[in-house]
Structures are given as C-alpha cells and as structure tokens.
C-alpha cells in the first residue's frame, strides 16, 4: 500500500464509542468512555487487572452491547461490508486435542486464499517469523503457554484481518518475544494497513513500543496519548 493511501486510511474512523458504559450487576466495568479508533493505527489499551480492558475489547469485537451510550463498529462506519476483525483471546480458545497446525487451519478461508498451497506457504512463513515452525505439529495440550500464545496470534493473522484485537496476547512471553511479536505486527501495520488493538497490563513493555495508548482505571479512561509519553 502506498504511503499516501495509508495516510488516507488513517483518517478513517473505524470504531467510535460515544459515552459508553457497561455494567455487570453492581459492577461498573466501563464508565462513560468516549473513544475513536482510526484505520491503520496501533492502539494499546493498558490498565490493571479488572480495569475494563477485556470489556472494552469485547465491545469493539461486537460480542457485547453497552448498557448506556453508542458503539459504532466498522460495519456502521465504513462502506466496506467485508471489513474483518480477528481476535486473540485472553484464554486463547485453541482446541486442546488438536495440533497447532490443525488449529491454524481454522483460518483457512477459501474466499481469502487462492488455494490451500498459498495458505500453507503463508502459514509457514508466519510460523518461521514467530520461531514456532518446528513445533506446530505438537498437540496444544502438550505445549507451553508461550507457544500457545504465538499459535493464537498466527491463527488470527492468517485470517488476513483488517483489524486485530488482541487481549493480553503476550502475557506469557518475555520482553524479547514481546518485541518480536510487536515487530511482526508493526510490519503488517505498515505493509497491509492492519489496525492493531492490543491490551496489556504491562505498561513498561508498552511504553517501549510506538503507537497510541489509552489507559483505563476502574472502568474510566484516564489517559490517551502516544505510548512513549506514558
């Protein structure tokens, strides 16, 4: 994608939250959030456990609706009906009794790939980049947390999404591996205009990456700005 095209897409709002609140019984998970997310940006959502990060991501994924306020999703804001968001879940949602490769094949969509061969080639390329190519034949139940997270990340990227919504995608990884994952996502962001929404409770890691950051505290949005200024 050309730079001028990228700049153009960056102006486009793909998610818009207007005075959004989410309440679970007595607990206010999100309180009066106003937020716009633009196409092609990298957004980090930080906050302590229970701050409302997962609830916010679930709103953006369209899995829940707000108790109050209005959420506009890409299908409402863009003319592109095929806009596709893919997720990396906090609990990963891999099938334990299948191998990593079998799990990755869940992303093989005939509408997106010309052939199975193209898919396999892309899968191998991504697995090599994540450093897991020699271990994808293992059953998920026999793998460690870090490998599982990488498989979940590769699965999400293999679906060739327009937007990646990742909930604590690297919490089991060390800094080096976090860096590697971020570099790959940055490359996708730069080359393919992928919008990345990444939640993390680890501010120290996030501040070393480039992108916009929003910080949640007790369901309230308390900070928004560039990650390096945190």
């Amino acid at each position: 994608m050309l730079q001028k095209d990228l700049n153009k897409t960056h102006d486009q709002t793909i998610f818009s939250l207007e005075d959004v609140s989410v309440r679970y019984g007595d607990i206010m998970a999100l309180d009066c959030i106003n937020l716009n997310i633009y196409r092609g940006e990298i957004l980090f959502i930080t906050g302590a456990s229970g701050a409302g990060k997962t609830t916010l991501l679930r709103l953006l994924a369209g899995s829940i609706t707000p108790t109050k306020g209005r959420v506009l999703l890409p299908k409402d804001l863009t003319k592109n009906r095929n806009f596709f968001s893919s997720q990396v879940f906090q609990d990963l949602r891999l099938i334990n009794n299948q191998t990593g490769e079998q799990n990755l094949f869940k992303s093989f969509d005939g509408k997106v790939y010309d052939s199975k061969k193209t898919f396999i080639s892309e899968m191998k390329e991504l697995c090599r980049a994540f450093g897991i190519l020699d271990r994808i034949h293992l059953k998920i139940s026999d793998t460690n947390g870090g490998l599982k997270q990488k498989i979940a990340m590769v699965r999400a990227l293999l679906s060739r999404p327009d937007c990646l919504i990742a909930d604590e995608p690297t919490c089991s990884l060390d800094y080096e591996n976090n860096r590697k994952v971020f570099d790959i996502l940055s490359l996708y962001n730069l080359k393919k205009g992928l919008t990345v929404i990444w939640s993390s409770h680890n501010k120290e890691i996030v501040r070393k990456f480039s992108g916009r950051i929003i910080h949640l505290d007790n369901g309230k949005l308390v900070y928004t700005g560039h990650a390096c200024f945190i």
Partner: protein
Amino acid sequence: MFYIKQFFKITKENSLKGFLFLLISISFILILGNWSFVKEKILNLYPDYMKGPSFYALISSSEDHLSIQRKLISLPGILSARILDKDLVNKQAEKIINNYQLKNDEMGTLDFIGLEVMFDKNINERGQELIRNYLIKLAGENNITIGKTNYLPEADNIKVLMDYINDDGFWIIGLLFGGFWIFSLMIFKKEVKKASYLIEQFQRKRQVEFKILFSGIILVYFLSAGLIFLSPTPEWVSVFLIGIFFSVVLIFSGGKHSWLS
C-alpha cells in the same frame, strides 16, 4: 460443499456423538417412512396377536370341503380356515361316542372332515354369527356340526403392547424418535457450535452452525429418502412430515454462539 465437509469432519472428530446423531436421524426416517412394513414385521414377532375367536366344525366328507375352505378364506373377517387331520378327527369323534356309550350304528357313518375357523381379532359378534350361518348354508344343515366359539384368554402384557403398536404405533414411535433425535441433536450441536464459533471468528462466514447442521441433515434426509424409494411400501407423507419436523427444530434451536471450552 464446505458446510457438508465440515459436518462430516465434526462427525469424524466426535465419532460417538456424531454416529449416534446419524444413526437416530437415519432410523427415524427409515422406520416412519416404511411404517406399514415395519409394523407388520413387529406384529409378526408375536403371531398369536392377530388371532381372534375360533370355532371347530365337523363336515361330512361327502361335501367338497376344499371349496368350503376356499370360500371361507375369501370372506372378510376370517383369519384362517384350516382342515384338520382326518384320522385325528375321527378318533376324537369315536372317543366321544364311546364316552356316551353309544353304538356307531346309532350315529351313522363316522366320516368327517374337521375344520378350524379363526376370525380376525377385530370382528364383532354379529359378523361371527353371519359367518357361522354362511358355513352352515355352504355345507348344508344336515351335513355339518359346529362347535361353540372359543374366545382367547384375556390380553397379556405383550398383547397390550402390540395393541398400542397396531393402533397408535406411528405416533408413539414418532414421538420417541422425535425426542431421541432432539436429544442427540443437542449433544452433537455442542461440537458444531464450537467448530462454528472458530470458523466465524477466523473466516468471513456467518450463520455457520445453522448452515453446517442444515446441509448435513438435508444430505442425510435425502439419502434416507432415497433408500425408502427402494422399499415396498414407501410412505411419503411421513417422510415429508419428518422433513418439516427437522426444519422446525433446527430453526428454533438456534442460539447465540459462545466458546465452549
């Protein structure tokens, strides 16, 4: 094709649940789609079930007993008319005469043909009487001796069950299979839901669960209906009703997808 492939893939991956669901679906269609044939086979397992009241008749051997037998069998309400062993009948007759200390001369010639006539189980008394009179007319009043009508003992448990199968079997079996089918569907559906959830999350497809189940069931339905086509007594109305039942249950059993770990 994608959805049919997924249906069989899920069935293969969850062989027990998948096999149970397929077995119940196919049996449901094949049994109710051939109900008359199946009912007959079930009732034949207990041959006494169809038997009604019976009586014996002694006919003079000078009469054409084969013609009488043929004419009786062709009557509605007659299950069977069996000619008894001639020697046995004559021995029995002789024994009775001896018991009464009568001389053979007084009884005339002892040369009878024995006939056991069995009514259908549902024939009423008026029908029985008409048949008995018809038999007297056929043989001639002076050439026949008819015994009293013997009624079968009170119905036992198997007979009661057979009565249910005979009268309301279609609906009883239909309800049972309907219940089992819904139960097996719900068990199998959990696996379909799980696979569909992942497909919807990572592929550009919607309503995957419904499409997988619907395409798989449609295929099984038409294959089973094809088998019914080969059967002697296909009952297409039943097959059609099952199709409606499958569709209605599928449409109303939809729910929100969620990850089932």
